[in-house]
């Protein structure tokens, strides 16, 4: 039996140790996998915590950290997506360094910051105190600012500036809300302070008008970090400019961590003000986010920005589910957090690979990817299906449950409007990704940018064997078929004599990346079919925030 307090600190300490190791050792063959190791430890600690806290919450570090089923679930999300992103990092940087776009120093700095980023997110979901939660979330902004601006090009610097200014401003509003809530709490009969558990328990004694101001500021503030309207402008820029593994982490988990803060605030608000106030606020922000995503996705020409707007849509759906607020809706929302994180991580990692192959982020210039790289195209295609909520992926189950709960809660008109917007978004994404994956390969794919050696294009054209029927099977069949494709690609890679040179290995998608993409899709699909032991955790977590007096 391990001391419970230690398990609470592992998810924060492991990535920090990995960061320290990167600071000392730099980027080497052995240290490249340290980040993935730390993410694995976070995931294992999260699962251990999940089994422990299902009976009673754990408190540690003099009451500063606390884990209940909701924090344990969020930690699992962080661990799982960090594992995907960090496991794809070595191959990503191998290709970047081979193409001369990065150096070993950039890679080491990147891995150090990513490890700190994961530690800050773990700290945020484990915080027992609203103030500490705020500090951790602001820390993620500061750390990721350097990751967004890593490439130092004009768009990257611009994106980083916008990101820090808008997010820090939004988060400053949340700080004002925190201070005002603290004021309300110290003047309430229970004198609760900022401890989340005590505050939620004593919420019915809070002064209502003051709490209303505080809750509005907190939801708008954390909503900024989550990419909801009105302060969402940073999201498409930052997510499209960041390197692929960072985009995967930011889109897959960072947004959800901000959403976690909103869930905590909503629990306090529901107890203090009744469920109407937070619901109205979240509904407006959710519909705003869906509208923004739908209108801007239709004419989007950049595929990384397309994915970013799609994140805004999904955050809108999460806010919608939270607004509904019944235990079923909240369990669905949490499942959606995990499913969206996995699918979005797969897609951002896949699109990062497409960017390395073609050198462009324009949808127009990528055409017929299935002809040149069927494995990558298959993964991206299935990822798009997952993201759009097709069965068997878990997003299908969670979206269905969310909408059903919405109708059951008497929000029929709003849910119908949201469904219409989702339909528009689905059509837009379908058209764009169909263009990229199917059809005749574009010149950008046949003569890969930046074309370091002639053998690279040879490999690309030689592998353009699959017929259109093979492409459709790759895209339309269940993930089981894709797994059988993986060894085939590995064989092709080793069989090609040029595969030993760096240039040729850059032309085919590396095995480790393919494994990551398929693992993400498989997990997402398995979750959609049977949540297994996770179902119990989901319901416990939903109950911790849905418990209305």
């Amino acid at each position, binding site marked *: 039996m391990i001391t419970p307090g230690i398990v609470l600190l592992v998810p924060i300490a492991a990535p920090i140790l990995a960061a320290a190791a990167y600071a000392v050792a730099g980027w080497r063959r052995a240290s490249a996998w340290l980040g993935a190791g730390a993410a694995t430890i976070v995931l294992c600690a999260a699962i251990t915590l999940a089994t422990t806290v299902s009976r009673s919450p754990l408190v540690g570090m003099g009451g*500063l950290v606390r884990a209940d089923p909701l924090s344990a679930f969020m930690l699992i999300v962080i661990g799982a997506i960090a594992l995907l992103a960090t496991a794809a990092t070595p191959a990503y940087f191998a290709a970047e360094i081979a193409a001369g776009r990065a150096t070993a120093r950039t890679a080491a700095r990147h891995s150090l910051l990513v490890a700190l980023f994961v530690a800050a997110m773990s700290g945020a979901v484990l915080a027992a*105190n609203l*103030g*500490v939660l*705020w*500090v951790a979330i*602001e*820390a993620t*902004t*500061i750390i990721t*600012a*350097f990751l967004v*601006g890593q490439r*130092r*090009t*004009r*768009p990257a*610097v*611009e*994106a*980083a*500036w*916008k990101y*820090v*200014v808008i997010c*820090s*401003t939004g988060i*400053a509003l949340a*700080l*004002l809300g925190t*201070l*005002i809530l*603290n*004021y*309300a709490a*110290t*003047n309430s009969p229970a004198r609760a*302070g*900022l401890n989340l558990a005590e505050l939620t328990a004593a919420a019915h004694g809070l*002064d209502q*008008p*003051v709490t*209303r*101001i505080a809750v509005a500021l907190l939801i708008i503030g954390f909503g900024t970090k989550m990419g909801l309207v009105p302060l969402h402008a940073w999201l*498409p*820029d930052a997510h*499209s*400019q960041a390197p692929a593994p960072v985009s995967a982490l930011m889109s897959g988990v960072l947004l959800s961590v901000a959403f976690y803060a909103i869930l905590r605030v909503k629990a306090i608000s529901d107890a203090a003000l009744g469920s109407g106030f937070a619901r109205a606020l979240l509904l407006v922000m959710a519909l705003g986010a869906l509208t923004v995503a739908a209108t*801007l996705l239709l*004419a*989007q020409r950049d595929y990384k*920005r397309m994915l970013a707007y799609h994140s805004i849509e999904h955050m809108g759906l999460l806010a919608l589910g939270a607004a509904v607020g019944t235990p079923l809706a909240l369990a669905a929302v949490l499942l959606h957090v995990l499913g969206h994180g996995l699918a979005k991580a797969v897609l951002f990692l896949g699109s990062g690979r497409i960017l390395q192959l073609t050198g462009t982020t324009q949808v127009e210039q990528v055409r017929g990817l299935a002809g040149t790289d069927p494995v990558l195209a298959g993964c991206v295609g299935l990822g798009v299906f997952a993201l759009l909520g097709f069965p068997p992926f878990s997003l299908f189950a969670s979206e269905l449950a969310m909408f059903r709960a919405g109708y059951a809660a008497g929000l029929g008109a709003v849910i119908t409007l949201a469904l219409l917007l989702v339909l528009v978004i689905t059509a837009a994404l379908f058209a764009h990704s169909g263009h990229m994956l199917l059809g005749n390969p574009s010149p950008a794919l046949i003569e890969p940018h930046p074309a370091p050696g002639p053998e690279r294009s040879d490999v690309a054209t030689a592998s353009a064997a699959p017929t259109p029927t093979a492409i459709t099977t790759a895209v339309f069949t269940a993930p089981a078929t894709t797994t059988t494709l993986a060894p085939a690609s590995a064989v092709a890679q080793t069989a090609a004599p040029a595969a030993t040179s760096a240039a040729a290995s850059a032309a085919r998608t590396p095995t480790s990346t393919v494994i990551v993409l398929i693992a993400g899709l498989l997990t997402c699909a398995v979750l959609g079919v049977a949540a297994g032991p996770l179902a119990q955790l989901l319901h416990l977590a939903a109950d911790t925030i849905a418990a209305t007096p």
Partner: protein
Amino acid sequence: MTETLYVQLLDLACGGLLLGAVLVLWRRELSVIIRMFAAQGVALAALVAVLAAHQRSVDLWVVAVGLLILRASVLPLLLARALTAAGPARRETRPLVNVAASLLAAAVLALLAYAVSRPLVALAPSPATQAIPVGVTVVLIGFFVLVTRRRALSQLVGFLLMDNGITTVGFLTTASVSLVVELGVSLDVLLAVLVLRILTARIQETFGDADLDELAELHD
């Protein structure tokens, strides 16, 4: 300290805070704006010192000294260094809203702040909480500076004004936010400013001497 002296000193410090914010709106020389911001930092530290003397709290005295170091010297120094690095262009050229209109807007924002913070004052009326609207006004003026100025450095000052306002509200409402949170918040603000300072240097490097309006590579 007698009660009347306490109230007078408190109001004086709050007046200083408000004046600092309005002067930032009024002047367009970037170096003057930074000096105004430093003066506002002194007013903020004085406010906390007055509260410390009134409550006879050692912790608050320590916080007051910390604020004086951070807001009245470290942050303005960082800004001033960014300014010298920025070269000859030292004026806020062409703000989106001209000075006269900005000052009128500040008056409207102050009214708004008084309207919004009525429940806050009503919850626990005391000389300190009566001054909450001043803090809220500073927050709003900071936000206004942030959205209407075009120089990276003036936007940064706008962000810091907001932060000063938020800190003011924090100390006027309660002095009992735990020390860990207090430290964390200060550290985050310092780091955010450092990050933005590095980014202004990079903007300088990649865009040359440019208004932020020329940052238009990314849009839909």
